[in-house]
Every structure is written in structure tokens, then in C-alpha cells.
């Protein structure tokens, strides 16, 4: 079994390392140099220039109003793919919670949650608990920043939602226990569904031209429609058209979805642990 894994790993790694030789140096899109042989970019080999990413780099900001070309591709040019990814995550969360609720059912451990005198979980030392409480607001703020500034700086809905879910992972790992599982599950699943619904409704709102048409972009500076000049700028939050809306929707969906998985997994761990007499590793 390990031999098969190793073989598969080396085949995939071989493919990746072949691809490294064809990577461009950062800042040199013309394809005259790669990261291992740094030739000068004097002679332009036109066969290697991709017209597609050239189009995005030239027109992306003027068409979508988004300063970050990656976000404009992810949520505008390829918005339908992103809808598919969000739907896949939704399905995964649904099926995982179906599986885990069958383990948790009937073994809810509300009364056996152990806390010390200050209300911190008893399973870990005080260093872990206080460190978690100190780190959590910073992680959440960074995640929210990534979501809100998705159309201006690197980041976006998926990354920001995943970073915020890391905060939940921190709570779970340092054995904080959710008090009221049903209520928390209902809250998270409501916001998860809300995120996906907002994405689809925003997509249908531009239906006059096409699904996910960016009807708010570049409309003389009203709601989310500021026209931003090409080049360096201080960052205009009021731009990007529907991109910030879609990014926020996806961010909320990813955060709530992954949080549901983590919370249910930790509760299932507690349920099984009490069943077997609580083993630790």
C-alpha cells in the first residue's frame, strides 16, 4: 500500500517538476525566461505569449472595476465555476452533518462539559486557553479583511472564509465546547444557506444580459460602481460592482460550512470518547 502511495507521489511530483521548468519569472509574462535558466527577455518568442491572460491583464480592471485581476477572473469571468465550487461545498457539509448527527444522536454531552473555576475548558492548560482567546479576534479580523478587500488586494471569499474557519479550528483544537449544539448548528446552517442564496440571486439580477453579469460595475460612482484609474491607487472599497457582494456571500458560506464540519466532528469525538470510556492520544 505504501509502495503504491510512494509511486503515485513520485509520478505526480515528476509532472510538477517538469512544469517548473516552464514557469515564468515573476514579472516577466512574455515567456522568454524560466525560473531555472534566466535568459534575458530581449528576443520575444511570440508562440509562448498567451493571449487569454494578456486580455485579462489589459481589460480586467476596466471591465469589472476590480483592482485585483485574480478576483475579477474568479468571480466575474469564471463566476459560474465559483458557483459550482460553492454548491459542492454546500453538498459536502450537508452529507457530513448527516453522517455525524447519527453518531452524536442521543449522546449529547451538555452536562459533562468540564470547566475550571474561570470558565475555561479543563482539558488544556491555561496557556492554551488564554492564547486562543487572544488570537481569535486577530484571526477573525484578518479573515474579514480578506473577504471585504477581495476585489482590491490578494484574497477573496474562499480565502477569507477559510481563514475565519481557522479560528473555529483553533477553538475546537483547544477543546472549547459548544454549549448548545442544535442552536449553533441552526445559526451556522442558516448563514451558509444565506450565502449561497445571495450568490445565486445576485447572479440572476444581471439576467438582462447574462447570468452573473456585472451590472453594478463602473456606473459613475454610485453603489459599488466607482471607476478606478489603471495603476497604483490607495484602494477604493466602493468599486468592483457585484464582486464584493459575491465575495462576501462566498466568504460567509465557506466560514459557516467549514465551522459546521469542525464543530460536529469535535462533538462526535466527545460522544465516541465517552462511549469507549474516553481514550486520549
Amino acid at each position, binding site marked *: 500500500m*505504501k509502495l503504491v*502511495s*510512494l509511486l503515485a*507521489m513520485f509520478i505526480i*511530483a515528476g509532472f510538477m*517538476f517538469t512544469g*517548473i521548468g516552464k*514557469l515564468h*519569472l*515573476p*514579472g516577466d509574462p512574455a515567456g522568454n525566461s524560466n*525560473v*531555472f535558466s*534566466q535568459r534575458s527577455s530581449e528576443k520575444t518568442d511570440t508562440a509562448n505569449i498567451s493571449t487569454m491572460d494578456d486580455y485579462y491583464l489589459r481589460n480586467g480592471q476596466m471591465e469589472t472595476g476590480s483592482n485585483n485581476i*485574480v*478576483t475579477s477572473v474568479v468571480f466575474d469571468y469564471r463566476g459560474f465555476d465559483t458557483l459550482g465550487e460553492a454548491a459542492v461545498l454546500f453538498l459536502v457539509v450537508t452529507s457530513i452533518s448527516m453522517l455525524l448527527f447519527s453518531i452524536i444522536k442521543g449522546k449529547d454531552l451538555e452536562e459533562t462539559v468540564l470547566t475550571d473555576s474561570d470558565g475555561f475548558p479543563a482539558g488544556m492548560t491555561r496557556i492554551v486557553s488564554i492564547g486562543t482567546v487572544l488570537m481569535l479576534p486577530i484571526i477573525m479580523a484578518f479573515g474579514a479583511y*480578506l473577504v471585504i478587500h477581495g476585489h482590491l488586494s*490578494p*484574497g*477573496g471569499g*474562499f*480565502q477569507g472564509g*477559510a*481563514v475565519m*474557519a*481557522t479560528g473555529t*479550528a483553533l477553538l*475546537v*483544537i483547544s477543546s472549547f465546547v459548544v454549549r448548545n449544539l442544535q442552536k449553533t448548528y441552526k445559526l451556522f446552517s442558516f448563514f451558509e444557506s444565506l450565502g449561497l442564496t445571495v450568490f445565486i440571486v445576485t447572479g440572476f439580477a444581471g439576467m438582462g444580459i447574462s447570468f452573473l453579469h456585472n451590472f453594478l460595475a463602473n456606473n459613475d460612482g454610485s453603489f459599488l460602481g466607482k471607476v478606478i484609474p489603471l495603476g497604483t491607487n490607495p484602494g477604493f472599497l466602493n468599486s468592483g460592482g457585484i464582486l464584493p457582494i459575491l465575495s462576501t456571500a462566498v466568504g460567509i458560506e465557506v466560514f459557516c460550512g*467549514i465551522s459546521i*464540519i*469542525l464543530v460536529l*466532528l*469535535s462533538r*462526535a*469525538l466527545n460522544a*465516541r*470518547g465517552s462511549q469507549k470510556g474516553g481514550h*486520549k*492520544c
Partner: protein
Amino acid sequence: MTFSVVLSILCAVILITAVLSILFRDLMAAVVSYAVFGLVMTVIYFMLDAPDVAIAEASIGAALTVCIFVIAIRMTRRREE
């Protein structure tokens, strides 16, 4: 030149951690090795000017996957037969 040297070293670290995470019999050690893999991968993505992917890899590869694996190991067995 330093760019390609650092990149080659990081690629070697990635290969080593990938092989280790397959070979370890202690599953917790394998998961930690996988976390190091994700961390080095983050640095590589950042060096190649892809901060979007770097953020995603840092949060998902090095944090969320590891958290889920650790919970799964605590629910089953730590040693692999």
C-alpha cells in the same frame, strides 16, 4: 540566482516531507509532516507571486486539514498496522 537556489531547496524540502508523511507509522507524526509540507508550499506560492493561492494553502493545507486529521486520528487509532 538566489531565487532559483532557494526555490530548489524548498522543492527538496517538499519532496522529503511528502515521502516522510507516507512512510511514518505514527499517524500524528505523518500529519505534522503534512502540515510542514503545506507551510513550505505556502512559501513557494508566495515566492512565485501568487499570494491568493498562498493564503488559501496556508489556511486550508496547514490548518484546517490538519485539524480534521487530528480529530479523525483521535476518533480511531494512532498507530498504523
